[in-house]
């Protein structure tokens, strides 16, 4: 529900995401804090945040394909990989990063269309299987191509991005670069639901038979859902390439694809806020468990390394299970209901 005392003079003003002046001020404060963070924090936190920004962009892609259009995709990591290898190849050819990143997005989008074609005919589990095929094919294809093309088993080094002769490869500079793209991706993800394509995606998700009778070309919209999702994956992939400064097929596994899905589900698949909350939640829990297990290993508790690592995996799985049991619609839904409760207080939120 909306806060009180807000009036509009146009429908586009009504569709604003940030409804109140206070919300806009808070966003500005957040941006300012994120921008000045590199001056006060160490490289560890900057690296973590940069990686979280990249993950967020990839999960936004899944939000479009899976959350909005309802087309299951368990090959997001392979699409991120396509973006990464494209970026590695192009940067090796001396292309500047501000061309490499959009180009990686477009090429990844184009390749995703190939794997979106089955979505025209199959749904649900069957579509999950065809996207799984994309994930499995990705390393096979890269390894089968000649070494000189994409590096094969060895992988490819990536030239650090440069702007006006300054390298953006350092932790501070890369952090700003990742922040910029994460901000643009966030803006795009919040724009999509308020658009013609966004409504068509949700119509196909809710009832594709009715959608087709209402003049929505369902097959085309499903393909556009994969294309749009892969654009995000391509940007995430190019940034991953610049972040790691080296790409190999082993960085883009089915495991990562499943994690992206897990983050989306924990955060909430139906709101663009979901990816933010999901990535933040899982990253914080993961890193928290990592710290605790390191402490355990350094202490004289006598617990072996193997036990600590499996315990931390089990705890992480438990966190996700609890999040799903107590809020199956994701943390985004919890956020919205909490906000409504406060707005209606002291009256009950039925």
């Amino acid at each position, binding site marked *: 529900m909306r806060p009180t005392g807000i009036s509009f003079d146009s*429908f*586009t003003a009504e569709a604003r995401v940030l409804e109140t002046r206070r919300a806009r001020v808070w966003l500005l404060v957040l941006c300012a804090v994120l921008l000045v963070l590199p001056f006060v924090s160490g490289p560890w936190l900057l690296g973590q945040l940069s990686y979280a920004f990249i993950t967020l962009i990839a999960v936004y892609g899944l939000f479009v394909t899976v959350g909005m259009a309802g087309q299951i995709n368990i090959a997001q990591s392979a699409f991120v990989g396509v973006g990464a290898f494209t970026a590695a190849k192009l940067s090796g050819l001396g292309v500047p990063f501000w061309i490499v990143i959009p180009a990686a997005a477009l090429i990844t989008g184009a390749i995703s269309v190939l794997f979106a074609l089955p979505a025209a005919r199959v749904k649900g589990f069957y579509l999950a299987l065809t996207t799984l095929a994309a994930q499995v094919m990705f390393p096979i294809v890269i390894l089968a191509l000649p070494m000189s093309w994409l590096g094969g088993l060895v992988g490819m080094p990536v030239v650090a991005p440069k702007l006006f002769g300054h390298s953006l490869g350092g932790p501070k500079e890369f952090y700003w670069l990742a922040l910029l793209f994460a901000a643009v991706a966030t803006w795009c993800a919040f724009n999509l639901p308020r658009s013609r394509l966004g409504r068509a995606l949700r119509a196909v998700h809710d*009832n594709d038979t*009715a959608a087709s*009778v*209402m003049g929505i070309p369902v097959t085309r919209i499903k393909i556009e859902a994969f294309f*749009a999702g892969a654009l995000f994956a391509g940007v995430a992939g190019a940034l991953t390439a610049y972040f790691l400064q080296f790409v190999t097929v082993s960085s883009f596994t089915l495991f990562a694809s499943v994690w992206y899905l897990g983050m989306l589900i924990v955060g909430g698949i139906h709101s663009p806020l979901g990816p933010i909350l999901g990535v933040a939640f899982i990253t914080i829990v993961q890193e928290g468990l990592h710290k605790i297990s390191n402490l355990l290993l350094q202490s004289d508790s006598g617990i072996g390394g193997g036990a600590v690592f499996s315990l931390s995996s089990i705890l992480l799985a438990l966190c996700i299970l609890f999040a799903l049991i107590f809020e199956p619609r994701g943390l985004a839904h919890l956020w919205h209901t909490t906000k409504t409760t406060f707005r209606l207080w002291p009256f009950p939120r039925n």
Partner: protein
Amino acid sequence: MALGAGTILEARDLCLRFGAVEALKSVSLSVHAGSIHALIGPNGAGKSSLLNCLSGFYHPWSGAVLFQGKDIGAKSPPARSVLGIGRTFQGIQTYPSMTARENILTGFHSQMRGGVFSALFRLPHTLRQEEAFTERAEEIIAFLELEQDRHRTVGDMSYGLRKRVDLGRALATDPKILIMDEPMAGMSPEEKGDLARFILDIRDHFGIPVVLVEHDMDVVMDISDQVTVLEFGKVIADGPPEAIANDESVITAYLGAAEPAA
């Protein structure tokens, strides 16, 4: 049946089979501009099959479907929607996760422009277009008296309201004819009254002819200009409601021999 003046939608000798079942046996139908045309008949008479042939879900084995004099037999459902054949559904076929206004806005899809990039970057022309079409959606919302519910999620609405949203979405496709499959089924008398009034207004104010399948005889006799009666896949009578109500074969086949309809 020849193509008469003012005929907007015509079915000629449609035949349709499902295995051994002959759903339609040489069915012809012509809908005149500005009229409300009811299709009635017992269960399994072929009413829904006929509607699905008109809106493109089924392709008849033989015969032709003509819209504004042109054969549209080969066109897909979305292509027919773009041509101007609007459709509402039996039961609930709205988009439950979207608000009433968003449901109606989806109806404008083929009239709006813009793909992935205009959606992601909310370009100026996207904004102008959103403004214009939201304005039109609001006109439909005002017509259907949905002002209180425009931002409610359709999944949380009552049956009658969802049917109204369904109708609003069909109106947004800018139809030249509207096909409604059992619009009144499962409604309370008040909801039926409201919907009957909307259907009459659609004919009178928008000038859109309506083809409807309906089981409620009172409604059919009250609002329709023309009634076609189907039984076992065949047309057994066709004419104005008064004539149908007194037609011997219809009375025995459908309305019951002892009690002519009101």
